[in-house]
């Protein structure tokens, strides 16, 4: 039948067969149809039944002539017209008030939100009613058409989808700019309201640990349900009007905003607790519940999936969160993943921005680090961390104002903290590089490192809380990790370690720099990373040797237990061979103790049998010698000093005795080294001091003669006048000796201050260490040694800079390597050169600008 009708339309011949009457009938029916349609469509929700019979007859007569397509088109067109002219403008008119109020939004947000809510609901209700009415009209048409002609059964669906398309396109084309914002406000307001309801509920749940719900809870539940229903209604209406995606955007952004605020609120500036779990809990409790209720209301959560198949690693036990409904819908899971990812990312950004502070209080901030680790595992944005942290370091740590010790401590904390986040040490490599680079430019880096390494155990002046011992702890722990492998079988250790490494192998992270060998970074070894600053362990060992020498030489007892322990630990890490000299130094100390006792007892026996004076015997008791094998010790500073006669004799006797016992060895005294404990007896007081031999010699000269001119005193002690003047300041500052200018302006007069009254108040300043200036050091420092070696190259460096103007570090290094080949072959590392050059810069011989060195004019 339909086919016939269609063909008759196409067949123009049919027109001829139309009689006058039928034409009239068609026109009549058409006019009638149009009129009824108009009144129907324009009409309010009046009863449609009066029109029904007339409408039906008109339509059926038109159908008879195969004009049903015209009927359909006209009807839909008139519906569209009404929408365009009437309903849509009316709907949008509601929101006109907000068209230019965006800037006011911040001022009276709350008030507006309430307004928006009411307005939106009302407007939506209105337009929905109108829509319903039109649908009713449409239904009538469909029914009529179905009666007249044998339409397929799904024609109703086709008509309605056509209609929906019309509605949404009409609304979309006239959409005012501010509408999405209005929606956003609305959802934001609703969600906040909901979250306050739920938050209390969530906390309560937490407190009661999931106990049964009480009346209060029920009330909340009702409130909540009402709210959700309200929102659901709005969403439903919006969807019907074709705003599905816009609505989703609006509530998604509202949820994300809320989540972000929540994360900021929870995370804050407290790094001592982990917040990730509570954030996750909140996501479950508030936004997901809301979405769940919403989707439920809308009837979207129909499709069920078995939780196994879609379970994400994060949704550890999703079904437990939805009591009653059982399995969550796919939509909910998708939402959960989205929300969690967003939460992770927000938290991660927050933490990364504060990473510097977090690392500053590292051991305390471990939970925050742990959070960050989880976030990064999920988001994989490690590079963000590296970039941001490096810039923070540059800005806050690597400045002239930061002390080397602080930088080192931060470096160690960084290593430890990042090791948690990234066990392979790939990012650590990137982050550590600027710190290392910077530390290399500092002169006292090596010294600070060695102090950090070794001072922890000594702990005599710093308490056990000193962070210095954390490094030693580090070494200790590593030592324990190397499960009972003997120190002496290195091969075994290596094999075992290699096997452990192989077993632990994991592919490198994607961000790993392929240029750096991966074996190298398998183990993040704090000590290794620190040695990496200096470039070679030899320098570190050398510095340690100097410090050890200093320490040993100043010991009055032979107690070297802590040093032995430190040495053993160092040996594990740096190898037996590099620590050999240090070991010999310690052995010297042990040997000294033995020999010292030996020498003294034999001398005492001799003196008893030989019947020598008692004075000598007691004298030997006050003498302890440290006998060193000077070949293995760092260069020792020499200074001439005349020891008072009786003591000198004592030393000679001791040396003689030593020679007798240890032939052919001879003992050479370094008279300026060591310490002297002495007691000064005055008429009214006695004072005790521990001083250097030089100071002791000076004060002993005053024993017999209370007043000396500086020249005479210098002669008596055997040192230059200027050195004497510097040294005697110690006694002057103690108020033991007073200085006055004598007759000769160059020749000062020193007088022993006899009693308290004489010298006025004792001027004992706190600067006991005044005497311990640089010249006081018994061992030439590593820098001094390096300096001496480097002066040869200084001339080369000035030579090349003179002719080439400016050169970068690398180029200077290479040029030295190239041309400095004869007698003192250039064999220094880049780091050594750098520290030497920075020394020259400090002396204002060179200038460093933009990474290039210049001669200072």
């Amino acid at each position: 039948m339909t086919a016939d009708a269609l063909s008759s339309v196409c067949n123009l011949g049919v027109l001829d067969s139309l009689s006058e009457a039928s034409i009239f009938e068609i026109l009549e029916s058409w006019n009638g149809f149009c009129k009824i349609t108009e009144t129907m469509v324009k009409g309010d929700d009046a009863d449609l039944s009066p029109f029904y019979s007339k409408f039906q007859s008109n339509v059926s007569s038109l159908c008879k002539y195969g004009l049903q397509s015209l009927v359909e088109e006209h009807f839909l067109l008139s519906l569209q017209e009404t929408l365009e002219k009437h309903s849509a403008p009316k709907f949008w008119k509601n929101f006109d008030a907000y068209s230019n109020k965006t800037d006011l939004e911040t001022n009276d947000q709350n008030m507006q939100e309430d307004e928006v809510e009411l307005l939106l609901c009302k407007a939506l209700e209105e337009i929905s009613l109108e829509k319903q009415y039109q649908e009713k009209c449409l239904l009538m048409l469909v029914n009529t058409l179905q009666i007249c002609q044998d339409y397929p059964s799904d024609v109703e669906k086709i008509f309605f989808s056509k209609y929906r398309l019309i509605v949404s396109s009409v609304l979309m084309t006239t959409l005012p700019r501010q509408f999405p914002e209005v929606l956003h406000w609305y959802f934001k307001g609703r969600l906040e309201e909901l979250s306050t309801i739920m938050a209390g509920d969530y906390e309560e749940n937490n407190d009661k640990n999931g106990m049964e719900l009480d009346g209060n809870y029920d009330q909340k539940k009702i409130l909540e349900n009402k709210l959700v229903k309200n929102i659901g209604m709005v969403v439903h209406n919006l969807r019907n009007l074709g705003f599905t995606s816009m609505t989703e955007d609006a509530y998604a952004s509202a949820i994300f905003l809320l989540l972000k605020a929540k994360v900021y609120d929870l995370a804050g500036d407290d790094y001592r607790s982990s917040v990730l779990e509570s954030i996750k809990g909140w996501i479950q409790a508030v936004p997901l519940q809301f979405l769940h209720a919403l989707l439920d209301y809308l009837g979207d959560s129909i499709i069920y999936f078995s939780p196994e198949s879609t379970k994400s690693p994060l949704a550890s036990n999703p079904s437990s969160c939805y009591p009653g409904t059982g399995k969550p819908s796919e939509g909910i899971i998708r939402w959960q993943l989205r929300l969690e990812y967003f939460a992770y990312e927000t938290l991660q950004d927050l933490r990364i921005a504060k990473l510097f502070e977090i690392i500053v209080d590292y051991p305390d901030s471990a939970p925050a680090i742990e959070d960050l680790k989880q976030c990064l595992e999920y988001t994989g944005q490690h590079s963000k961390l590296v970039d941001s942290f490096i810039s923070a370091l540059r800005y806050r740590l690597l400045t002239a104002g930061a002390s080397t010790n602080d930088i080192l401590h931060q470096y160690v904390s960084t290593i430890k903290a990042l090791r948690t986040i990234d066990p392979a040490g790939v990012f650590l490599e990137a982050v550590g590089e600027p710190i290392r680079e910077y530390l290399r430019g500092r002169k006292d880096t090596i010294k600070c490192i060695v102090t950090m390494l070794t001072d922890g155990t000594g702990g005599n002046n710093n308490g056990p809380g000193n962070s210095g011992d954390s490094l030693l702890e580090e070494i200790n722990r590593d030592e324990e990790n190397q499960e009972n492998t003997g120190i002496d079988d290195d091969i075994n250790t290596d094999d075992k370690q290699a096997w452990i490494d192989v077993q632990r192998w994991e592919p490198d992270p994607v961000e790993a720099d392929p240029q750096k060998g991966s074996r190298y970074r398998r183990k993040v070894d704090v000590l290794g990373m620190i040695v990496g600053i200096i470039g070679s362990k030899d320098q570190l060992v050398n510095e340690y040797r100097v410090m050890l020498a200093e320490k040993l030489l100043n010991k009055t007892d032979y107690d070297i237990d802590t040093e032995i322990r430190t040495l053993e630990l160092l040996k594990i890490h740096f190898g037996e061979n590099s620590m050999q000299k240090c070991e010999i130094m310690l052995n010297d100390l042990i040997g000294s103790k033995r020999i010292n006792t030996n020498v003294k007892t034999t001398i005492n026996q001799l003196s008893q049998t030989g019947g020598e004076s008692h004075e000598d015997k007691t004298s030997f008791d006050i003498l302890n010698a440290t006998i060193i094998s000077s070949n293995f010790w760092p260069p020792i500073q020499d200074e001439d000093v005349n020891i008072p006669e009786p003591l000198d004799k004592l030393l000679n006797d001791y040396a003689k005795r030593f020679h007798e016992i240890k032939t052919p060895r001879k003992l050479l005294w370094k008279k300026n080294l060591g310490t002297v404990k002495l007691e000064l007896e005055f008429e009214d007081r006695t004072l005790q001091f521990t001083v250097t031999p030089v100071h002791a010699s000076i004060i002993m000269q005053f024993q017999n003669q209370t007043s000396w001119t500086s020249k005479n005193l210098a002669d008596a002690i055997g040192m230059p006048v200027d050195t004497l003047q510097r040294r005697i300041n110690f006694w002057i500052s103690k108020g033991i000796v007073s200085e006055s200018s004598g007759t000769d302006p160059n020749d000062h007069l020193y007088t022993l201050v006899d009693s308290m009254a004489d010298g006025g108040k004792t001027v004992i300043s706190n600067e006991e260490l005044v005497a311990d200036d640089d010249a006081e050091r018994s061992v030439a420092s590593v820098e001094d040694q390096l300096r001496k070696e480097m002066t040869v190259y200084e001339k080369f460096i000035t030579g090349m800079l003179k002719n080439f103007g400016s050169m970068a570090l690398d180029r200077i290094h290479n040029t030295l390597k190239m041309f400095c080949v004869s007698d003192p072959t250039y064999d220094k590392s880049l780091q050594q050169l750098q520290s030497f050059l920075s020394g020259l810069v400090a002396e204002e011989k060179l200038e460093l600008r933009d990474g290039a060195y210049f001669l200072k004019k």
Partner: protein
Amino acid sequence: MTTMNNQDSNNSNNRTAAPPTNASKQPLPTPKAVDTQSVLKRLQSELMALMMSGDSGISAFPEEDNIFCWKGTISGSKDTVFEGTEYKLSLSFPNDYPFKPPVVKFVTGCFHPNVDVFGNICLDILQDKWSSAYDVRTILISIQSLLGEPNTSSPLNTQAAALWGNQEEYRKMVMEKHLYKKPTA
């Protein structure tokens, strides 16, 4: 034109023409047997000697990749019109050094009777009076003293030679040129 072989130059250069050189730097002349290794060694030891000598006002250093090409710097001696100036030189050594002299040129323009506009230097020890006993240091010292004591009788730069008589004007000229050259130097 190319040589300065008259008494005047002898007079001006005899101080520098016989510098103290140690015997070891004067290997037996075996002119044809060119051994790059020994040339390298010779240049290296010259560099070391130059660096260690600590002469002020003269300096030279090989370019990074080629020990046969050196850059030199000399400053004008005190109490001459060239006082306070600094000139860059280039020294390139032949493969049979020290049997042939190096080619030495001024890189910085130098207003001097015996230096032409291209920086070529007219100095006897760099031409026919060369001896393998000379080395970089003596060459540089010779050039430095040539600055203050030019040979005006066979000039490369006649204008400079003419002006030499008027030391005050000459000084002005030198400073002018030097200041003018400075930014590019």
